[in-house]
């Protein structure tokens, strides 16, 4: 039971990162590595607003999520949009985003220091028993927030005019422009939503296990794996992949110890890329195969 509970919590975090990543990836078709540093930045923003500025916790969290969205937009306007205007290849954009990742992560290190910072109050968090598993309130909140946000997002993408516009731009930006959709604005909005989702994930993780400047790399990688395994265009596929990945990781903890989690996650990815690069649910990643 404890393993299952841990897996659900991990899946929640992975999902928050993965869905935002998939949204952006579906739109611009390159690996937005800087997504991982936005995750970190949100946690640190919450810390800065709470501890240095002295805002109440709720306000600090809201400000940090907004901040995450702003950073996402800034990267899009400052780096990606000019590159897109030059018809840069996905590899060029990927390299630029790696550069952005390195810069921002180190800026966080310089400003806040490399040591662990915490958001939660110092006493040991209360745990509650659910069917024999011990979970904290933060962990419960992670699961709940992930479910609610992802479900809302799925509904928005499928049902609203905005979602329609987003899908149109993802399919073909030029055609969308011809039909009167402002592609750049929709892409900007996507970056804002995706970054905010990553930000929420980052803050929740910071509440659960504190923060370090390098905390973003791991969820980013797991999120990318979930997106590749689940299929870019399919939110249910990503949910399934996130759950499976989290279960595989918890099983690894049980059998080999927690140190080997990442190695196993990446073996899953390699196997998937080689055997079924399209993901479970098909469509999205045909371009992966030469």
């Amino acid at each position: 039971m404890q393993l299952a509970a841990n897996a659900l919590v991990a899946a929640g975090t992975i999902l928050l990162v993965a869905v935002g990543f998939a949204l952006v990836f579906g739109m611009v078709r390159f690996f937005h590595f800087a997504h991982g540093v936005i995750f970190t930045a949100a946690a640190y923003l919450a810390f800065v607003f709470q501890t240095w500025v002295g805002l109440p916790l709720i306000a600090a969290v809201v400000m940090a999520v907004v901040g995450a969205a702003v950073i996402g937009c800034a990267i899009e306007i400052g780096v990606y949009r000019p590159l897109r205007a030059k018809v840069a290849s996905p590899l060029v954009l990927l390299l630029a985003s790696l550069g952005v990742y390195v810069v921002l992560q180190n800026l966080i290190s310089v400003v806040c220091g490399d040591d662990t910072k915490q958001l939660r109050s110092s006493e040991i968090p209360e745990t509650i028993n659910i069917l024999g598993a011990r979970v904290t309130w933060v962990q419960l909140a992670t699961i709940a927030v992930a479910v609610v946000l992802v479900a809302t997002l799925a509904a928005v993408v499928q049902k609203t005019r905005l979602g329609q516009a987003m899908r149109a731009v993802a399919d073909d930006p030029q055609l969308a422009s011809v039909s009167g959709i402002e592609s750049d604005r929709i892409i900007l909005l996507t970056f804002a939503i995706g970054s905010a989702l990553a930000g929420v994930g980052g803050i929740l993780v910071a509440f659960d296990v504190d923060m370090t400047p390098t905390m973003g790399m791991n969820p980013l990688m797991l999120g990318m794996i979930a997106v590749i395994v689940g299929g870019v265009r399919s939110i249910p596929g990503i949910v399934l992949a996130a759950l499976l990945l989290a279960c595989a990781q918890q099983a690894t903890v049980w059998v080999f110890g927690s140190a080997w989690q990442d190695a196993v996650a990446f073996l899953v990815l390699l196997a998937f890329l080689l055997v079924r690069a399209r993901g479970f649910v098909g469509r999205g990643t045909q371009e992966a195969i030469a």
Partner: protein
Amino acid sequence: MTNPNHGDGSGEILGEWATTVEYFLHIAILIGIYLILATGLNLIAGYAGLLSIAHAAFYGIGAYTAALMALNLHSPILVNLICAMLLAGMLGAVVGVPSLRIRDDYFVIATFAFQVIVFNVLNNWVSFTGGPMGLPGIPQPVLFGWIVSSHFEFLLLVGCCCVAVLWICHRLVCSPFGRVLKAIREDEVFAQSAGKNVAAYKVLVSVIGAAMAAVAGVLYAHYISFIDPTSFTVMESIFIISIVIIGGAGSLWGPVVGAVVLVTLPELLRFVGLPSAVAANARQILYGAALVACMMWRPQGLVGDYSFQKGGGRQ
């Protein structure tokens, strides 16, 4: 860096001067090691167009092979070098194989996966690699009875390796082999239709590049005499690919220029008087920003001729 001459009666000025010389020799050795790394990666990424962020993994495999052999078997550096190159070459083939099936940016992710797995093995297999504690006390290299002990002698050794690696790279690139690599980079289907065995070329170039990284790893292990997994992280891989790209992918001198620029630039920060706690971060910010700037304004790098524009954009 420790200064053996400091305060041994020969006078402060002489001591300081010796430190300065040692410091410059140290920088030159580092440039040499990164030059070898970047040249190997340039073959893979610059000439064959297979952008890889697993190069630090091969670097690490080379370093750990040399360290473990030197510590446990007391074998000479030449034997270590050959074994490290063989091992890294074999693993290079393992990384080359996905490139047959997975394209461009997905290949990047696959190499990324390999990098993380290797780092985890180095970090977690404590009984064999020493884990996070690393491997201390790697002996000085002995080459045909020549004990390489001072910085200057080591620079000679590294310099010879650099020349050898560059010469091999030059020979490869000017040969029909190099032309086929460029053809694969520009248009894979065309290369195939011209009767070239694209799969074999891709795997072979991965093997050669990985073996070159192992050379750098062996030199590094024997030079620093202590290795731990933090020298072979994803960040290190990104640093090496930055050298290739900022210097100029697909040209012989690109990695040379890149290694000189990216290794010496952060050293200038020392003279600006940054506190050492910030210096490591500042170094990474510098090359990260350089990478972004390069992509935006000069994607072919300082002296290169390939800009990863294959299949450019979606329009």
